[in-house]
């Protein structure tokens, strides 16, 4: 292989005229972090609502939850992003579609919302499983004390269910970070996008993607460490899952 390694490339000025190639990658890194965090917040909020719906005794509620989950988890993420970005504006009335297309930062918002909704289906399934894993008597005890259904969820069921699903939730958080890279296809120049741009400008493909890999790894190590810390601080003395 006739490849010209050049690890100094990161400190050479990039052709956009603003800083070095490293600056290019770091700006992509920030965009990845911003997109992932917003997507994760959306995933948690919608996942919690839908997870609760799926665990309610009401047939209508669990049917709504079922449809939501199956819609978002059975379509490839790439297709979903295309749907939101290219198809949705065409389906809306002309004025609304036009407004949507002209929104500033459209790829960012589409990616965050699209990845967030995709991940929310997974969070919902896990939360519903976490709630289902609690002894039936917990809900009965809350009800018998006079707590309403909402209070029972808020003070009794959810605090335990979230503790139980903390390890798989960590994985979903990591997946959220990694899935933001799909947004390159709708023009979001995040970390993967910047690595590709660097490759195209400098032809140093291996350096560019090595750096991107290290950066993804770094984000995810921080996520794992943070979640482990959270898990520990929420552990219940004497309880089986706690230490």
């Amino acid at each position: 292989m006739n490849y010209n390694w050049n690890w100094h490339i990161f400190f050479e000025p990039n052709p956009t005229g603003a800083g070095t190639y490293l600056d290019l990658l770091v700006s992509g890194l920030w965009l990845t972090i911003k997109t992932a965090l917003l997507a994760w917040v959306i995933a948690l909020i919608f996942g919690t609502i839908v997870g609760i719906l799926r665990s309610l005794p009401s047939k209508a509620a669990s049917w709504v939850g079922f449809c939501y989950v199956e819609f978002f988890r059975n379509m490839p993420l790439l297709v979903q992003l295309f749907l939101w970005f290219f198809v949705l504006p065409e389906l809306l009335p002309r004025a609304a579609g036009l407004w949507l297309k002209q929104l500033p930062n459209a790829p960012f918002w589409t990616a965050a919302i699209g990845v967030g909704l995709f991940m929310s289906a997974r969070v919902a399934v896990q939360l519903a499983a976490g709630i289902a894993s609690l002894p039936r008597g917990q809900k009965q005890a809350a009800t018998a004390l006079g707590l309403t259904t909402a209070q029972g969820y808020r003070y009794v069921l959810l605090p335990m269910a979230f503790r139980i699903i903390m390890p798989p939730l960590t994985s979903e958080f990591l997946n959220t970070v990694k899935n933001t890279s799909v947004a390159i296809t709708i023009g979001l120049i995040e970390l993967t996008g910047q690595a590709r741009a660097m490759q195209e400008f400098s032809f140093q493909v291996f350096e560019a993607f090595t750096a991107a890999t290290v950066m993804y790894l770094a984000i995810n190590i921080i996520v794992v460490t943070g979640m482990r810390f959270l898990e520990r601080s929420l552990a219940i003395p004497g309880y089986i899952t706690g230490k």
Partner: protein
Amino acid sequence: MIEISHVNKWYGPSFQVLKDCTTSVAKGEVVVVCGPSGSGKSTLIKCVNALEPFQEGQIILDGIKVNDPKTDLPKLRARVGMVFQHFELFPHLRIIENLCLAQEKVLGRSHDEAVAKGDKLLERVGMKAHANKYPAELSGGQQQRVAIARALAMDPIAMLFDEPTSALDPEMISEVLDVMVDLAHEGMTMMVVTHEMGFASKVANRVIFMDKGEIVEDAQKTDFFGSPRSERAQKFLSKILSH
């Protein structure tokens, strides 16, 4: 206090768990419900505070119809204490917090007020030293005593016990029964599902014997232990009293 009349309940279209159950518990009365497993005694007691719905008949609790859609069930349930076979303390809350939760969220007591009340009741069941522990750090008997204190913290007009000692080691049974006997002597209205015939003969006013969803025998304590009228009750008693 508790009027149960002609209650019928089915699981699914064909399995009838309760068959035309009629009985009552007067103010200050202690009624023990016994019978073989699967006889519907737990189901019956859970119908009293509407943890289990039933299809026919009616239950009136302190003048309020339980199976009336207009009844504010959380409010009604808050006035009846319930103790479960598996304690059902909330594992993520400290003992004192377990006692305070419903006092604050349902009765609207201030935190200080709730803690004061909780402390008093923990003292009464001999658990004050454990107020800041978590449920998983206590033995079964201790957890059940806390569960009784939690129910009492709501100032209930009646207490329902669903096999409160069935999940306990023999040596822990007496510490729980002691608390229940004290409660009975103080004039608490109690409906107790239990196999503890010693407890029944000591404090019960009446004993109800159930089999296959029916109330087979509903007699004064002395009559029940002296000469039960039904053959099934005689058989049941001879089996559990022979050892």
